């Protein structure tokens, strides 16, 4: 008689597999399991280089010789460096001007493409081209367009617009060179804005437009009170990405001007590259690159907050 309950217990004791299953079924465990691969990738490819970057920026490491810890000396040197000061200004101007133009032009293009017209899909595909073509390739093409000897721009000025006298030296003048790199950045970035915002525009409910039309709202009012608020989250995210990419841009400037003339197009990334890899001052170069981090962190934080407020 006394044996039976024991047997029952035995019979109902869950098998190892079932126990494992129930263990895995626990939220805390399962969450960790599915998170682990991503965390490992993050740690390996983002956290490690980032931490190494921070460490290097605190040393006087040079190419081929180990560095010593020197605290924040590199950062102090950066701030006192006139080329660095110029780089900071350049980067802000580059990012601000390019982003504003990309936003305006991208929105205009998105609104245009959102209208029904023949060959709409084809146009949408073509608009993406500048974004798809590898930056280095398209920038080399731009370099030819700005080239003083072969410039199609100067040719147009001369033959179509009747320009006489000295041609502008597109990449030779510090101010024009900055304008040129900004222009190419806008050209490359507009498709990203246009296509993303187009996706946003397509989520706007037609009923809202109809209702507002019945209430007598004109197109401008409809844009301001319906379109813009609806696509605002997309707009914010797209702008955030663009700011980050533009701020940390490298390829375009490096191909087009190598930071010159007179460092007038030097950005954080190009100056860090020049300092660390050409000048061999790896620690100092790392500190220049790291200066981007707090600035970008602030940008991300501000936009995240505004997004969250939006969500509430």
């Amino acid at each position, binding site marked *: 008689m006394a044996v039976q309950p024991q047997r029952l217990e035995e019979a109902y004791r869950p098998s190892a597999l079932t126990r494992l299953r129930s263990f895995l079924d626990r939220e805390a465990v399962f969450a960790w399991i599915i998170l682990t691969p991503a965390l490992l990738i993050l740690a390996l490819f983002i956290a490690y280089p980032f931490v190494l970057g921070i460490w290097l920026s605190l040393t006087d490491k040079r190419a081929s010789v180990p560095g010593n810890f020197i605290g924040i000396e590199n950062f102090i040197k950066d701030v*006192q460096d006139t080329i660095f000061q110029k780089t900071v200004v350049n980067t802000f101007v580059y990012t601000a001007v390019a982003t504003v133009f990309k936003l305006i032009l991208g929105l205009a293009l998105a609104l245009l493409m959102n209208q029904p017209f023949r060959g709409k899909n084809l146009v949408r595909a073509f608009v993406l081209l500048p974004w798809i073509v590898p930056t280095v390739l398209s920038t080399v093409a731009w370099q030819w367009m700005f080239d003083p000897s*072969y410039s199609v721009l100067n040719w147009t000025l001369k033959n179509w617009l009747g320009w006489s006298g000295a041609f502008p030296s597109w990449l030779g003048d510090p101010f024009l060179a900055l304008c040129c790199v900004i222009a190419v950045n806008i050209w490359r970035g507009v498709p990203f804005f246009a296509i993303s915002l187009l996706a946003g525009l397509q989520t706007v409910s037609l009923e809202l437009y109809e209702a507002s039309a019945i209430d007598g709202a004109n197109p401008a009012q409809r844009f301001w009170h319906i379109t813009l608020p609806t696509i605002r989250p997309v707009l914010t995210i797209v702008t955030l990405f663009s700011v980050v990419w533009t701020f940390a841009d490298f390829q375009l400037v490096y191909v087009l001007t190598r930071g010159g*003339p007179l460092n007038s197009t030097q950005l954080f990334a190009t100056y860090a590259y020049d300092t660390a*890899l050409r000048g061999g001052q790896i620690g100092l170069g790392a500190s220049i690159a790291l200066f981007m981090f707090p600035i970008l962190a602030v940008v991300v934080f501000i936009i995240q907050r505004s997004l969250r407020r939006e969500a509430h």
Partner: protein
Amino acid sequence: MSDNVDMTPRIPRRKFLKRAGLAAAGLTLGAAGLAACGDPTSTSATSATTAASGSNAGTTAAGVTAAGASTTKQFSGELRLLQWVSFVPAADEEFKRQADEWGKKNNVKVTIEAIPGNEVQPKTVAAIEAKAGPDIIQMDYNWPWLYETALVDMSKEYNDLKTKFGGFFPFLEGNSVVNGTPRAIPYCVVPGAWVYRKSWFKEVGADKFPETWDQFLDVGKKLKAANHPMLQTMGQTFGDSPGMWYSFLWEHGGKEVMEDGKTVAINSPETLAAVEKAVTIYNNVFTPDVLAWDDNSNNKAFLAEQISATLNGASIYLTSKKQNAPFANDLAHAIQPAGPQGRAATQLNKTHAVMGYSKNVDAARDFVNWIMQPDQYNKWLEAGGAYSIYSLKSYDSNPVYTKDPNLTVFKETIQYGRNVGWPGPPSQAASQAFSKYLIVNMFAAAAKGKAPKDAIADTEAELNKIYNPNKK
């Protein structure tokens, strides 16, 4: 959207994110700890090993070469060599052919990796830091000084070649022998000379190329008015720009630093005279495009018949001859005009360094030595058509330098060769000033309207930070 709906009831999103965040933070801190504790020691440990293996390899290689003089050497594996794409493809092809020949003979697979000149240095630093990459790097200027500890001691080969072939030119010696130890084998010099259009010069009444910078200014004004300007880059680029502006500074008696390599000496009446002269030349002889030019631009502009003269290697001349350009016979070369202090030249030189991290050091040393031997070296010089000047004096007899009277001038320029940072030693600091384009930009800033005095003062401040980093 659907993901959120599925997820919310099981794990609240906030909780999920919190966990994920904590996990990420934990891992990051772990990595930080690891990097902070482990890295410096491991770095120094590895570099110590590299240095040790470098010197071991050095002695072994020396042994092998000494013993191997009579027997055949046994190599295997692979060799990678990094170099620039020179402006004379025929020479690059010959180099590759020689590499294949040596490879076949020695059972080694040799790969020549040729990239644009501006990219060689970043790649070199990346390879040194990763301790992996090309076994041999063809370096420019004074790079052996910058990467001394990463390079194999080449004393054996260097001294052999030196005794056998009449010695290296002094400025090449200065660039390659670092603190008494040869760290690379000077391969060649790519000197600059002014290439010009004879007929266009005649049109403005100049029978030959100006001998001094004052004459240069006179003739240049006329050529600009005739819409055939003489141009030379003032841009941020590695070869032509320093080739012009360091030399220009020296020829006027200016210098960035004293012989001690510490006392910054840029702020002098001589520099002021040089900068003022450069501004006059920029305004009256050049066009603003020169500020954007890289090493390629003057080749393009000259071949497009847009300019009458530029300072360059022999590549413009060689290309126009090869392409049978209608103006090929109208070209001539001339030595750089002289300043009040005579002539001086920063010459682009190429030197082969064997990397300490290489797994095939012996083979690399043998190859670098082998290409300097007459059978190979003479062929390569000839393929280059006098574009490159020999580094070892006894190759002076190569017929390529006398065959074409238009090219003899390049050989003459060698005697004016100086190191970057002259009269100081070829140091790390000189290279930093070089890589920041400080001297070039001093001239460019003044050309763009900055008062010459201010441009010099700015440069002085930057040079001081480099040469005396600890002085406040």
